[in-house]
């Protein structure tokens, strides 16, 4: 492989799937078998997608490393680059480099309960954790608390509904909060009255008991969500060291050079792309501007 950290590797789009009106799921595989064999990642890591001649953008991996042979990216159409990607079809080739970042400490958390708190697009990196936990079976119980705008915005809807129905058998309980009422939501709520409700993601904590000494919380969502979710967790006496969150900044290079993702002040500066994107709440307390 090239020693140039900015070189990207050809990956073919195997499948494009509409998740919502804004998000598509791209399943990719590297063309070069050697690259494919060497490509290992951890849940929570990200890659840089390269559309040759148009530019690059960072995106978190939403498939699990337990399922080899492909790589999945959930891409929301928000800007020039992602609009371009949304026009791409099966068989098209993009460039990929990475994986970058630290990822979630999955091994350290083995044997514990996991609470995954996802808001909106934050479901994407946490899906990698979710399937990793289910596939390996090395975790006590997995809760997924997922806050979404409306029924139509639920990412991986089929999977979420499947887990609502059959999650118990996999030690996985899913809870869903939606903000905009619709017939589909009400139908869902009727089916799973204890697990689906109208409200925000923090409402899903209500009535939930967990052993704070054997639980880790993993959070990903829009910037505004962190404060409220963390407060909820701290109120339940979960240690800041057991709260992991994955953050977003403008990662341009991914390798700690370009300076766009630097946060902090004169006493503590961090590169989100290398020191993160996964941080504990201790890190947030000692690094201004992290959340």
């Amino acid at each position, binding site marked *: 492989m090239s020693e140039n950290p900015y070189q990207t590797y050809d990956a073919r789009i195997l499948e494009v799937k509409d998740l919502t009106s804004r998000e598509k799921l791209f399943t990719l595989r590297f063309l070069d078998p050697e690259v494919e064999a060497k490509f290992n990642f951890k849940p929570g890591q990200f890659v840089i997608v390269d559309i040759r001649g148009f530019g690059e953008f960072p995106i978190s991996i939403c498939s699990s490393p337990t399922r080899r042979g492909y790589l999945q990216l959930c891409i929301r159409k928000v800007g020039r680059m992602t609009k371009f990607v949304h026009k791409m079809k099966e068989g098209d080739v993009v460039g990929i480099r990475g994986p970058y970042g630290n990822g979630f400490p999955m091994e350290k958390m083995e044997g514990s309960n996991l609470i995954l708190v996802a808001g909106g697009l934050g479901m994407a990196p946490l899906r990698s954790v979710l399937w990793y936990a289910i596939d390996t079976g090395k975790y006590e119980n997995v809760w997924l608390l997922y806050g979404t705008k409306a029924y139509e915005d639920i990412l991986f809807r089929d999977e979420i509904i499947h887990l609502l129905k059959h999650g118990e058998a996999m030690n996985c309980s899913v809870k869903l909060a939606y903000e905009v009422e619709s017939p589909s939501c009400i139908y869902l709520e009727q089916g799973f009255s204890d697990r689906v409700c109208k409200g925000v993601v923090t409402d899903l904590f209500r009535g939930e008991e967990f052993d704070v000494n054997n639980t880790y919380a993993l959070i990903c969502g829009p*910037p505004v969500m962190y404060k409220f979710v963390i407060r909820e967790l701290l109120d339940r006496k979960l240690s800041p060291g057991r709260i992991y969150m994955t953050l977003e900044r403008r990662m341009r290079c991914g390798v700690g050079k370009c300076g766009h993702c630097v946060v902090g*002040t*004169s006493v503590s500066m961090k590169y989100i792309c290398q020191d993160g994107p996964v941080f504990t709440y201790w890190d947030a307390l000692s690094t201004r501007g992290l959340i």
Partner: protein
Amino acid sequence: MRYIKLPSENFERFFKSLEAWGTLYAPVKKGGIYSFQEVHDPAEVARDYNRTMLPPKKFFFRPKEAILRLKNGRWEEEVEAEPMVLFGLHSCDIHGLKILDKVYLDEPADPYYKSRREKTLIIGISCMPDEYCFCKSLGTHFAMDGFDLFLHELPDGWLVRIGSVRGHEIAWENGELFEEVTDEDLANFKEFEEKRAKAFQKEVPQEGLADMLDLAYNSPVWKKYAEICLACGNCNMVCPTCRCYEVCDSWMDAYSSVRERRYDSCFMENHGLVAGGHNFRPTRLDRFRHRYYCKSYFDPTAGYNCVGCGRCDEFCPAKIEHVKVLEEVRGSLK
């Protein structure tokens, strides 16, 4: 360290001999400012310059450069580097390069920066501070390493410190140009350094600087200066340690494209902008403060991100003074 003497009358021959090692760049006066330019004649060199506008980082991390070229659907790398000799770097700039090295040579190393850095000889030269310099207070007024040769001015020549194997090779190959250092030379060297130490007019009080600044996060002084600041990003461009860059692809024709990077500035609004329009540093105040925190960040292995060269002060159109801002912020805590 090996010390030798270059008598004044041999300077020209010594300078010409450097051309054998690569293209020679040295500070030249252009209009009212100095800049590093290709030189062939020692008479062109401004040996007593205060500071160049762009620091020597421009040779390694270019203001704008192609990093990849798209040919037949594949990115091809462009790691070209020609041997260079940078003559006449001041100690602060040598320290500035060391800070850039920490970033760009850390794994994974930036291949463009690395190849240029490896093919470049650094020859330092002593200087006298002017009203903008505050390197002494940051400990960057004297370079202990990071150069191949360092020339210290003496009344009748130069005391030369040899800082690398290539420095030894230059001295070896031009053996006839150099002399042994005498006690008188050492006395003159000491006298020059003492005179220089007394000439500094500005200093950053270092004690607890990083913590003090962090505590003063909400100081009204930031706001006061953010209102004066024009957010032009000049200070970023001329800073020897600022290294943010932006990447941009552009098409050359229907089949080939180039991926370029260029200097970026943390004063620009899109520096902290992410997909979907969320900006992590939305106001000028956020961006102004960020730069000061970045420059005052203390890395235990590399020191501060500021070397006290004074460029940001001299080239600031709003006449904002770095040290004054830090002092006022510190003062606002009392």
